[in-house]
């Protein structure tokens, strides 16, 4: 009798574990994130932030997994994920271009730089090239107005830009 219950219990625990871990390659990571947030659906924004920290964007499969595990319908999660500009639903490129559009850069011609970049990589602001070589975003201030117009590619700062320099600067990044 006792044995039976024990067996049953083990069975249930195993089932739970297989649900927890066997789901997709990132099941373990997701569970870690959820545990850190107390498996609390009301902490969904924090959970999405963790997810984005880990993957650089919000991968779709993993979002569905989170939706299942938290019992929070996907339509809510999708609403939040698209509501906040900070969340990305598509993977970023290998090199992220951040062009400053703050006041100083703007005055010093960041607009034409933007056009030049768009022409070179072939996607507009907010986009990622098809080969994932570049993602392109604009930011408000990089905090080095003396270098205006300025951009960063990855962690490297490129200042005092001119449209004609763009090709040369970006060529290096693969």
């Amino acid at each position: 009798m006792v044995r039976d219950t024990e067996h049953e219990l083990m069975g249930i625990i195993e089932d739970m574990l297989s649900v927890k871990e066997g789901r997709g390659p990132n099941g373990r990571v997701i569970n870690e994130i959820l545990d850190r947030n107390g498996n609390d659906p009301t902490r969904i924004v924090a959970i999405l932030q963790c997810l984005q920290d880990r993957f650089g964007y919000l991968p779709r499969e993993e979002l569905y997994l989170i939706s299942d595990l938290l019992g929070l319908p996907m339509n809510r999660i999708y609403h939040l994920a698209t509501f906040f500009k900070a969340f990305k639903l598509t993977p970023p490129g290998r090199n992220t271009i951040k062009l400053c559009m703050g006041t100083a850069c703007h005055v010093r011609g960041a607009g034409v730089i933007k056009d030049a970049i768009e022409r070179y990589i072939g996607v507009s602001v907010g986009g990622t090239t098809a080969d994932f070589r570049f993602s392109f975003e604009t930011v408000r201030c990089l905090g080095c107005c003396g270098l205006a117009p300025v951009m960063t590619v990855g962690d490297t700062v490129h200042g005092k830009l001119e449209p004609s320099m763009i090709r040369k600067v970006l060529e290096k990044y693969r």
Partner: protein
Amino acid sequence: MRYTINGKKRTARGKMTVLEAARSAGIDIPSLCDNDYLEPYGACRLCVVEVREKGRKGWRVVASCLYPLKEGLEIRTDSKLILQHRKLLVELMLARCSGNRYVRRLAKRFGVKRPRFGGGDEDCIMCGLCVRVCSEIVGAAAIGFSSRGISRKVETPFGIDSSKCIACGACTYVCPTGAINMEYERVIELRKNEKEHMCRYTLMGFLDEAVCMLNYECARCEVDQRMRDRFDTHPAFAMHGRLRGAAAAGRVKRTGKKGVK
């Protein structure tokens, strides 16, 4: 609870919103996104009224469908300011949905002729009725809002065909402007895709073990019409709280934790 509405003193018992109180007093407040079966949402703002709380001096403009009635509350439902507000709101709706028949009729009722703002040709006024009925009553949670500001819209997650939708049509039924329509393919797909035959009424749990006499050719289905005749509303509303189909089984409580522990 005593309160004053448009100068008349009244009493009420129990918890209710200002909108409900006004209705029980026989005062008509226009409302658009309010539905008896759904949680108040406060999207359309047409139901604005002025209130003054006990012991306070100033009047405040609030959405009556969300504002709880309080002891000693004074309410004005048709002051000049309120009428102005409503007119502006309708003007904005008309500017957004300049071609929509329902919105135009609404505009006429509120005396709005031409919106001063640019004419959009949307149909959806973002009232959220469809989203709420799908989550709260049907329990399918197939559609939701996405983005915000001018790019906000109603869609399925990722904009892809949602396997959650059971093609019940409650969203189509509840939409005031006719902005959301049922793709008939969806109904047909349900019947093709499942291992067993399914129709929306089985999925909602009206027809157990449905043996369809029409061989699941939903186009010829009469249940639709009969449901309409019988309930005089969409079956999902008629069966409010009693849906027991596949979709409702997945219903999640508002704060529910279907925990993994």
